[in-house]
C-alpha cells in the first residue's frame, strides 16, 4: 500500500466539504439531492478506506457500504418523488419557495 490511508481520507473530506457547500448553496431541490449523493459518496469512501487499512479481513465494512448505497437509493427515489409532487403543485423546484412548509 504505497498510498497512505490519510490520502484517501483527505479526498473524502474534500468531497464532504463540496457536498456540504452544494446542499447549502444550491437553490434547486434536485441540485440539493445531488449534493446529498456526494456526501454519501464521501461516507462510503471513508468506510471502505478504513476497512482496507485497519481490518481487511473483516468484510462487515463492505456490507455497511452496500447498505449506505441502498439507503441512498431509497432517499433518492423518495426525494425525487417529493420534488415531482411539489413541482406539479407549485411549478417550481426552488427550495426557497417551500418555506411555508416549515411547520
Amino acid at each position, binding site marked *: 500500500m504505497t498510498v497512505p490511508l490519510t490520502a484517501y481520507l*483527505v*479526498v473524502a473530506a474534500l468531497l*464532504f466539504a463540496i457536498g456540504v*457547500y452544494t446542499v447549502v448553496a444550491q*437553490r*434547486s431541490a434536485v441540485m440539493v439531492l445531488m449534493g446529498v449523493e456526494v456526501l454519501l459518496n464521501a461516507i462510503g469512501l471513508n468506510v471502505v478506506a478504513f476497512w482496507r487499512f*485497519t481490518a*481487511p479481513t473483516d*468484510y462487515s465494512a463492505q456490507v455497511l457500504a452496500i447498505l449506505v448505497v441502498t439507503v*441512498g437509493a431509497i432517499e433518492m427515489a423518495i426525494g425525487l418523488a417529493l420534488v415531482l409532487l411539489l413541482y406539479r403543485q407549485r411549478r417550481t423546484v426552488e427550495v426557497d419557495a417551500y418555506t411555508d412548509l416549515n411547520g
Partner: protein
Amino acid sequence: MMAAFDILAFGACSFVAVAGALGMATTMSMFRSGIFLMASFIGVAGLFILLSADLIGLLQVMMYIGGFLVMILFMVLVMHDPGGAMMAGMELSPLERWFSKGLVPRDEATSAGQDDPASGEGRSHAGNRHEGHAMPHGEGRHGHARDHGGGAMPHGAHGGHAEHRHADHQHGDGGHGGMDMSMVTPVRPLAAWLAAAAGVVLVGMLFLRPAWPVTDAVPDPDSARRVGNLLMDKYMVAFEGAGFLILIGIFGAVLLARPSTHPDDPSRAAKAAVDAKPEAIRDDRLAPLAEAGGAPEPEHHGSHHGHEDHVG
C-alpha cells in the same frame, strides 16, 4: 513500478472525483452538473477498486450511474431552464474560469498529503497550505455572489415589464418573474465559508490524529464471495430489512408521484383539455410577413442547384 502506478492511479481517480464534485457544485447548467456528478462517481468507483473493494466499485457504477443519475437527469429535463441558457447572457464566464482555477490549491493539498506520509511536519505544512488557499476561495465566492446579484438586476427589471412577460410566456410560467435566475441562494458566501470550514476542520483533524492502527494484511481477492456469505449469514436481518425498506420506499415514491384523485387537485386540472383560444402573440420579434412571401423562390432555386450537382 507498482508503487508509481498506484500513486498515479490514485492521483487520477481522486482528481476526477474532486474535480467532478467541484464542477457539479459550481457550474450553472443543471444538466452539466449531472454529467460532472457522473465523473465524480466514476472517480470514487476507481478509488474503491484501488482499495480492492471491487464489488463496491462495480456497485457504485451500477447503482449511482445506472440508477440515480438517470433519475436525476430525468428530473432535470422536467425543470425550468435545465441547460442554464438564461445564465449565458450574464457575465459569469470569467468568474467560472476563476472557479476552475480554484481547483489547483485543493489538489496540491491532496498530493502533498500523499507524497510525504511519514513526516508529521510535512503534513501540518500541507494542512496550513490548504487553509491558506481555502480563504481566498471563500472571498472569491463572495465576490462572485455580489457580482451575480448585479448581473441579475437588469434581468429582474426586464421581467417586471408586463408586456414582455406576456410575449415571453415561458418565463412567467416558471414562477421566476422578478427573481434572479441563478441556481444558488443568496447564502452562497456563507455556504462557501461553511464548506471551507468543514473541509479545513476535517483535514486538520486528520493531520492532528496520531497514526491509525494500519495492518499489512491483504484482503481476499475474491471479496465478493465473502461479502455475499456475510450478507446471507451474519447480516441476514439487515439484508432483509434493506429489501423491505426498498419495497416500502418504492410504494411511497409511487404514491407520492401519482396524480392526486381529489377532483380539486391542481394536478388533475392541469391534465384536462381546455377549450379556449390561446392568447394572441403581440410581438414575436420576427420579420413582417411581407418579406416571408418572397422567401420560397430562392429556396427553390437552391434546391434545383443541389439537384443538378447531385446528378453531375
